[in-house]
């Protein structure tokens, strides 16, 4: 670019030198304007080159992420369904059951909903929303809404007859608390916490805490997988870097094989290899290393996840490492040895530090990919090998609690960004080399 600029300047100045007062180009336009025009055209060209990718990223990346983040706080179900009830609840003390006025408002809200077209009804989604906070709240809502047109005053008794929860202040507290357009409750749940009676946030019962341990396990597994890919990838990348191109390419194909094999084929292969009656166990038993009763569990647990994901992600470590190592001339090691360093010192002090950009890039790639991985853990991870993404996927696809999924996803995203920031801070992203 700089060179292009320079030549453009030369082209403009050449003919203009004849004029001393005001510089003009050969066709008479003032030089300054000609330059501005050239500059503008250059900018337009630059924007034109970048625009397609920018638009693409905005529509398929930025926008969906923004939507996801919005979903994690969006909370219009109760506001939409119970405007009158919420109005009446404003003066409720939150301790005893609310008065008849609230139940009458609830009746009016539900009656109004019956008038709506089925697809526009608000009580169904409200019931599902309430059930996230309080089990059985959904059936309290749906059973009542079916018969609400037969209710007669006093409504309080009618509702309490229809479902026991209408006589439980806990349900009313949830309605009041979540009766606003934005909520933090998905994040509260994602952190294994819940609202206590007085509205403070407390930890959940120990036997219902799952997300924080899962986040911890995801981090742990990602670190282990990154370390494994490094331990396995470094020697092979080094070996490839000192081989002649042809042989290195052959080896590279072997490393890249997981990329080209379908997931199902790979999964079946791992099962055949790793299961208790599988090839490895049978081999160990046949060799007399273990006895038949103590076959190793290597699949449907963390080992399975680690083995499978290390296999899949190995290329992401090897490629940056290899490309960095290729550029390290052998003369550095020779120089170090000639200066008196033993081979191991030379490796440690001279060769290894120069591979750090590759290790950094490979490590960041593998770590970030594995933090978000979910297909492989779902297939071979069993229970102990599942990661947070599996829980996100479950909430997206099965429980349909998109708010919670979005909160978990946002936390994962923020976590990755923080880790990247830390990496950038202490290692420096400019030293990354992706190949």
């Amino acid at each position, binding site marked *: 670019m700089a060179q292009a600029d320079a030549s453009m300047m030369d082209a403009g100045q050449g003919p203009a030198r004849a004029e001393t007062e005001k510089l003009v180009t050969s066709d008479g336009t003032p030089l300054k304007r000609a330059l501005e025009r050239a500059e503008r055209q250059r900018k337009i060209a630059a924007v034109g080159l970048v625009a397609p990718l920018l638009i693409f990223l905005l529509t398929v990346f930025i926008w969906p992420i923004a939507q996801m983040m919005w979903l994690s706080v969006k909370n219009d179900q109760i506001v939409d369904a119970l405007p009158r009830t919420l109005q009446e609840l404003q003066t409720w003390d939150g301790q005893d059951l609310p008065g008849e006025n609230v139940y009458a408002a609830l009746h009016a809200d539900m009656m109004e909903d019956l008038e709506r*077209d*089925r*697809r526009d009804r608000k009580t*169904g989604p409200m019931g599902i929303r309430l*059930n996230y906070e309080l*089990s059985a709240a959904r059936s309290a809502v749906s059973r009542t809404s079916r018969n609400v047109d037969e209710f007669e005053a006093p409504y309080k008794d009618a509702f309490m007859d229809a479902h026991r929860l209408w006589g439980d202040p806990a349900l009313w507290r949830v309605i009041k608390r979540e009766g606003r357009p934005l909520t933090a409750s998905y994040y509260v749940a994602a952190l294994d916490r819940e609202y206590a009676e007085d509205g403070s946030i407390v930890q959940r019962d120990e*036997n219902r805490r*799952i997300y924080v341990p899962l986040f911890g396990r995801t981090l742990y597994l990602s670190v282990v997988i990154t370390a494994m890919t490094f331990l396995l990838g470094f020697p092979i990348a080094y070996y490839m870097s000192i081989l002649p191109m042809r042989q290195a390419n052959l080896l590279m194909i072997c490393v890249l094989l997981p990329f080209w094999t379908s997931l199902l084929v790979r999964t079946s292969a791992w099962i055949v290899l790793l299961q208790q*009656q599988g090839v490895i166990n049978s081999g160990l038993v046949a060799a007399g290393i273990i006895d038949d009763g103590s076959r190793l569990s290597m699949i449907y647990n963390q080992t399975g996840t680690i083995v499978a994901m290390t296999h899949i992600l190995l290329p992401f470590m090897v490629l940056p490492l290899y490309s960095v190592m290729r550029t390290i001339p052998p003369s550095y090691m020779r120089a170090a040895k000639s200066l008196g360093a033993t081979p191991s010192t030379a490796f440690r002090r001279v060769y290894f530090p120069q591979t750090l950009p590759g290790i950094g890039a490979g490590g960041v790639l593998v770590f970030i990919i594995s933090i978000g991985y979910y297909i492989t853990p779902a297939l071979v991870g069993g229970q102990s090998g599942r990661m947070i993404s599996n829980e996100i996927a479950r909430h997206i696809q*099965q429980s349909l609690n998109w708010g919670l999924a979005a909160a978990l996803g946002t936390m994962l995203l923020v976590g990755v960004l923080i880790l990247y920031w830390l990496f950038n801070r202490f290692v420096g992203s400019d030293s990354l080399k992706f190949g």
Partner: protein
Amino acid sequence: MKSTLKLIGASTAASVIAMSAAADDPVSLTIVSWGGAYTESQVRAYHEPWMEMNPHVTIINDDGSANALAGLRAQSQAGNVTWDLVDMLPSDAQLACDEGIIMEIDVDEMLAPAPDGTPASEDFLPGSLDGDCFIPQIVYSTVLTIRPGAFPEDNQPSTIADLFDTENFPGRRALQDRPGTNLEWALYADGVAPEDIYDVLATPEGVDRAFAKLDTIKDDIVFWTEGAQAPQLLADGEVVMATGYNGRMFDAIEVEGMDAEIVWDGQVVEWDGWVVPADGQNIDAVMEYLYFATDTQRLADQAQFISYGPARASSAALVGEHADLGIDMAPHMPTAPENYFAPIILDNDFWVDFGDELRERFANWMLQ
């Protein structure tokens, strides 16, 4: 919308012939189901006969049922509903129904009566019509299956209690990685009568009791996720007994020749059936198809291809032999009297209400 529904209801009640004469424009229906042998049984029992009778109809199979709920919601929110008919579980159907993204069904108006004139609402098995949007199709059950070779001949597991008895029946067991079925069985094995299970499970003490029972075998459990994994684990000798869907187990035993036996004690019975996405593009054509595909004969026909029981009482007598194997299918139905001695009917309402909480508890229990 409402007027359309009334129109269909009226016409189906009036006459099938008049209806099929009315629609002749080519139409293609996207029907979402579970894939594999199950979709195959639907193709042979429903789709092929229907397309033969109605050459203008093309049926496209989509194996998306595992994530049907998410798909329905996504399509509804995008305002572009491309699915015409979806096969799903009643608990999911209940959620979709509450959200208003599938159609409410008036069973007697929209579905065929039994051959003897019994209205559809009385012909479908008791309990199957719970909910406003769900059209039952089959009864399936989750059963315990054992590998006889893993035990001495005179001491074979034969009850759900034996599943929890690692002393007399040692070896690893495969259970599904979700609370449903497992918690019911834990209580059943602990002495709770089938009809009381959900009342007990609705109390915190009951939940603690179920988990305490599960704790006793925790070290011997292998969890499975996908339906195909359970028979595979048995066949590979990875486990000595496994829970699984009776149809998959039937297939593995009778078709693949796996050496295993189904224990019908405490089978957890659940329905599976159709829902119609609201705002589908071919609702008239779908309703015609449904009227046909859920009648007594068609439900009985499906049992020729897979060992799931028809959801109509009137179909039971018509269940014949397996289309390919030639074995009598009636004894393999979950609903056969000799199998149906101690069924636990899965309570969908319970699971919709308590599912989130119990799943969390179960996930936590598995994490420990």
